[in-house]
């Protein structure tokens, strides 16, 4: 059985939960005491991932860290359609480019959230500014993709790149980053949220939770 070392509030772990759900793949979770106990920095966990980070995935003898790496593995192994990680040189290049963006530039939005929610001692103003710059890049790209009739991050169909980019963009409000200025991002988030098998996580306002919360008596 696939085993995910997990923290409920981690957007990086959610990348993996979301993708497993989209694939309809069974798995078990091991909740790791990320907060407040910092179990991910203690010897037991460091044996699993010397970087002291979640998520970690175990499948048989294979142990993988890094959400992007895990998504590539899961798509390669468990997606018979091949569409989530297309077998084409240019397509793979584009997917890898955006996977790297998800694990790199977009993580500034994750850090802003850690500051705002869990009190991490970060320079939040600078993080939000960097996250906004990354959002502008993504928003411009998605707007161009729409014009090309290619509305997903790396091509005409959703790929693991969409799944890797989705969480920290969708959770940006938790870190004090509003998305009013990124209309193409908003439309893309809405497309992800109606994929069959989509699941949310705490902090993501789905269209249904958002409206309902404003008018519970309806």
């Amino acid at each position, binding site marked *: 059985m696939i085993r995910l070392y997990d923290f409920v509030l981690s957007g990086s772990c959610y990348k993996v939960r979301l993708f497993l759900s989209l694939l309809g793949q069974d798995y078990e979770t091991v909740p790791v*005491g990320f907060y*407040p106990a910092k179990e991910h920095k203690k010897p037991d966990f460091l044996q699993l991932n010397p970087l002291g980070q979640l998520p970690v995935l175990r499948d048989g003898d294979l142990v993988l860290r890094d959400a992007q790496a895990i998504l590539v593995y899961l798509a390669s192994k468990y997606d018979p359609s091949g569409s989530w990680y297309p077998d084409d040189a240019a397509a793979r290049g584009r997917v890898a480019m955006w996977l790297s963006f998800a694990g790199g530039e977009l993580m500034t939005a994750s850090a802003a959230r850690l500051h705002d929610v*869990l*009190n991490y001692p970060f320079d939040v103003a600078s993080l939000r500014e960097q996250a906004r710059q990354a959002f502008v890049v993504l928003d411009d790209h998605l707007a161009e993709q729409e014009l090309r009739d290619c509305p997903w991050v790396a091509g005409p169909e959703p790929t693991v790149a969409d799944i890797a980019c989705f969480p920290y963009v969708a959770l940006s409000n938790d870190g004090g980053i509003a998305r009013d200025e990124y209309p193409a991002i908003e439309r893309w988030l809405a497309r992800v949220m109606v994929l069959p098998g989509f699941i949310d996580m705490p902090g993501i*306002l789905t269209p249904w939770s958002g409206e309902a*919360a404003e008018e519970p008596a309806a």
Partner: protein
Amino acid sequence: MSKDLEPAALDQWYVIESSEDLRSDQPRRTRLLGRPILGERSASGTVTIEERTEEGETLRKLPCLERYGYVWTTLGAPVKPLFDMPEFEEDGRRLVVCGVLTVRTSPGRIVENFLDLSHFPFVHTDILGAEPMTEVTPYKAKLDESSGELWVTECGFYQPQAMAASSGAAQVDYLYRVPQPYAAVLYKSSPGKAGAFDLIGIFPQPLEETLCDVHCFMLVYDDVSSYEGMLQWQQGIFLQDRIILENQRPARLPLDPKAELPSRADTSAIQYRRWLKNLGVEFGVA
């Protein structure tokens, strides 16, 4: 200097850290009601809390207590001792201390949301509520004159997964105790012990009028869940509330009786706001 605060805010007991996380190698530099606070534990285990100037100089030592897994202080002179929770003495319960979670809103908004059953199906979908079972049945909200506490009683709700240990949907009995304006505890039917109640409590530590560190605990009969499973269940619920709370306007809790209320099942909100107004609470209200 910070502005003068009213007794109704000053004279409450506030958590500034969990006992476990206030360690001799880990002091807590924080704020309370807009004022700088330092909490420390000496190598021998003694806790001291002081109010400081913005520049970090000691102004005065503050009262401090350790109880229920938390470190408590006050900036005023509470007329009542810290409220008693006899459930902490009961055998077989497990305590889960959820860690500080920060929310950009007022303590009143946080307590009011905690008392509100009607948001369950929409905010905690398929956990604490589910459509179409959205109806809030009549309940009572009343100030208990002898204790000076607000109690909300006779609540019930249909819940798909009432607690971490729940094995399926159930009709769950609830009651709420608000022992002081900025602290609240709920009691709900325990899936782990028939006829008993599990406790969940929130202690907002108001850093500023519209910024709180929220301390949250569970005290439950549960022999099946792992500690981490229970903890993350509660942290997940909390983050679902957080985004709703941060979107409420105004962030201060409006006490004007004409102000709009968030939902239809308002009895508890009406009583809560009225109580704060009668007590003369000004910090964090509009």
